């Protein structure tokens, strides 16, 4: 019967962000909200900051620090120029991700 469960679709429809702090999360909650902020950006279409085009999640190269998605070619460009992530300006080793 467990095999059947794989066909169940789960959609996030409510405002879960309001729900989390309302549970009384304070210290740890700060961290949790930040994580939610990052992942909330995935709720809509992903956009590469270099060419401003949509990136498919399965094809995206993600900045390991801020999770910003890049097209593979755009990430290669950053790697070849040793440029930092356009969003967080912290990660610069894109060569490690695209080789």
């Amino acid at each position, binding site marked *: 019967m467990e095999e059947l469960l794989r066909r169940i*679709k789960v959609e996030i429809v409510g405002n879960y962000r309001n729900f989390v702090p309302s549970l009384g999360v304070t210290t740890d909650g700060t961290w949790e909200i930040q994580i939610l902020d990052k992942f909330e950006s995935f709720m809509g279409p992903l956009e590469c900051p270099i060419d401003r085009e949509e990136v498919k999640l399965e094809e995206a190269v993600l900045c390991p620090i801020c999770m910003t998605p890049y097209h593979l070619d755009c990430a290669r460009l950053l790697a070849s120029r040793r440029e930092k992530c356009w969003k967080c300006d912290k990660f610069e080793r894109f060569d490690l991700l695209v080789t």
Partner: protein
Amino acid sequence: MEPAETRKVLLTLVTDPRRFGSSLYFNPDVLGFRLGTDSWTALEALVSLEDAGILKLSAPPELELLYQVELTKVRVANFLELKGYQEITSDFKRVWLLGRVLKLESPQQLGLRLTDYSPRLSALSGNLTKMLKLFESKSLVSKEVYMRVASSVMRETASAARDAKEILSELSDLVRTISQLISRLREARSSIEETSAKLGIKLEENESLIRAYRESERELLELLGLVKSKLLESFPNWSAVLTSYDKLRSEFGATGQDFISALETMKSINDKFVLVTQIG
């Protein structure tokens, strides 16, 4: 659900890398592992969040047929007491959860159990045997004696038929449900196979559905056989009674409506046994 637990489930969902947009498919192993629970507890948590208006759970319509099969399996397990109380309750809870996802109303109760009503079936069986024996000896005794004994047997049979009404009706419903499900599974399977043959392609999703349908059909056939064999334990002269159905009905019709409907229900149950086995 505890607030901490809710938070954990939500975080697990929104940080699931397999999520696409705002939706993802339930993966029992991964979600269960990430939440540190079994997959059914994870599904229960999701159902609670759906009640809270945060999530929306849905499942494709073909799952409804498999849900009905699972529900029937639990009903049969309860009817024949194939499992312990705890195990049946836990299976029923799982099916109930699936029903919630499919937005179907699950039954509140699992129904009767055969062993509780076994003495009533045995009593009916005994009285019907008496009727058959009486009919066989009709030519050997005077009409007066025959009528006197017959009226006594008919009175007892009427009472036994009344007592067995509930369990026969439950049995009939269960057998009818099983046979209908077997037909639906066969139809659904052949429809997918036909479409695949026409298109000339085999999709893994369809193949897994065909496997699930085939497995469910096999399980239901096994359960039907088990229902029959358990029934024969309580009703040893089942076949003899049904062979003499017309004879009993015409000779002892005056026994009353309970007797007639008991015979009709038995015949309908038996027809399902025969039909399903023949087509299978």
